[in-house]
């Protein structure tokens, strides 16, 4: 038997949460309804907040509680609420049209996960932290979100992809390294929030200019025509 069971319970829970995070990333990749996409994003935030809190509890780093609370506030409550509002106001419900169909996307996603795991394995072996295996999953989540951004056509789903990529990075920061310094985390949170607000304004302008949030209108600028 592999040695998993010798790991303490909290590491097992982190591993479980990591797996759920990966699952959610795939679910986002497959999801067509934008409202569900936002809900999945909120779930991701919840998983992230719980894993951060658990790491904080287990390693006795109180600042991680703060960061978990921040995650909860920002990624489970505030950003999904903003996104829901945007979706309601802009009246975009579906993102059916995409560059690559779902099964192909999934297969590419699997390949990416394998790639990410391979990349992470040598690093994980060097790690001193107990939750080192999660680095691969964090990297995989980042890559899957990247894939989602590439394959989606609607501006809003691209942004959700961007946010979920940030989730993956955050997971790498908290679970693989037990959290970055507080200043940095605050800065990152601030950037994400401000970025989201700017984009919210942007959506309306894009819609105003193009009468749609479909990004195929945004492919005019090319060299030399």
């Amino acid at each position, binding site marked *: 038997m592999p040695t998993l*069971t010798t790991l303490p*319970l909290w590491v097992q829970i982190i591993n*479980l949460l990591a*797996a759920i995070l990966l699952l959610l990333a*795939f679910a986002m990749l497959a999801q067509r309804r934008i409202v569900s996409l936002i809900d999945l994003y909120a779930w991701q935030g919840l998983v992230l907040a719980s894993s951060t809190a658990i790491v904080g509890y287990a390693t006795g780093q109180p600042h991680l509680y703060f960061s978990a609370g921040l995650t909860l506030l920002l990624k489970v409550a505030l950003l999904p609420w903003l996104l829901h509002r945007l979706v309601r106001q802009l009246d975009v419900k579906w993102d059916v049209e995409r560059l690559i169909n779902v099964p192909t996307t999934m297969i590419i996603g699997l390949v990416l*996960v394998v790639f990410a*795991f391979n990349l992470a394995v040598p690093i994980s072996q060097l790690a001193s932290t107990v939750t080192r*295996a999660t680095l691969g999953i964090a990297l995989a989540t980042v890559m899957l979100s990247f894939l989602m951004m590439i394959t989606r056509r609607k501006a809003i789903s691209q942004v959700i992809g961007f946010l979920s990529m940030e989730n993956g990075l955050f997971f790498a920061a908290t679970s693989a390294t037990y959290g970055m310094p507080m200043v940095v985390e605050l800065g990152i949170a601030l950037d994400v929030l401000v970025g989201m607000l700017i984009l919210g304004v942007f959506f309306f302008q894009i819609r105003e200019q193009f009468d749609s949030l479909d990004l195929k209108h945004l492919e005019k600028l090319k060299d030399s025509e």
Partner: protein
Amino acid sequence: MTITGFLSQLLQVAIALALAPLLVGWVNCCRAWLANKRAPSLLLPYRMIRKLFAKDAVVAQNASPIFRLTPYVVFGAMTCAAAIVPSLATDLPFARAADAIALVGMFALARVFMALAAMDIGTAFGSLGARRDMFIGFLAEPALLMVLFTASLLSGSTSLPQIVDTLAHREIGIYPSLAFAGVAFTMVSLAENARIPVDNPATHLELTMIHEAMILEYSARHLALLEWAAALKLFNYSCIGLALFVPFGIVVSGTGWQLLLSAAPLLIVKLAIGGAALALIETLSAKMRIFRAPEFLGTAFMLAVLAMLVNLLLGA
């Protein structure tokens, strides 16, 4: 091969044969209860099989030998599968042949014969059912294999008894890979056993049926064998699921009679719970259009592959 070993192997097969219709009856009862209906008798499947055996078989004029042979092949394949699935004990004489891939092969063999027989008569429904069944099988089998591989990765072997042994004697812990594989396996089982989101066992509505369309031409003892085989298939799948995901209580050495006899009631309890859960799933979900099936099974496949990947990375 000792006599006791042989006898306990026989016992396991006998229990499977005997309990399979009961499981179907139980699931039907649960479904009726959940739908607030009066439940049919628990023993209805037995009566049905007995009634069918008593009748004279009618076979279409243009039926080839394959048509007559199929019920026996399918029933035989399912019985063999019942012999190698470690439902009661792991150290049985057939255990050496009990390979996960062989098991999937056994199911595939039954499926191929079913499909051939369904097309044999040349009716529209038969071909339609055969086509749909192959379509589903083509999607479900890789997923099933992936689930089994995930379990194999944990134990380092594709031999079913060994997998179950390691899984039964692991320490209690959280295994994300097994959780994913469990969900994937449930989805595959639903599809493979023609249960609700994919097929509806309780209806003969032409446009949607899959399994029922294939056995439309059969009657009497042939039909009885096929129904029994279908019940056995459900039983086998349930046992695989139980062996992989709740293996506790399975006896390691199949020689101790007492142990074996203690494992049997436990199995019945687990099957009863599993059957009720199946009924619950079926009641809660609606049947999908056939074109949604690839998505459903694709999800199962993805989950199974993810389980494998997570297992490789996390070692759990």
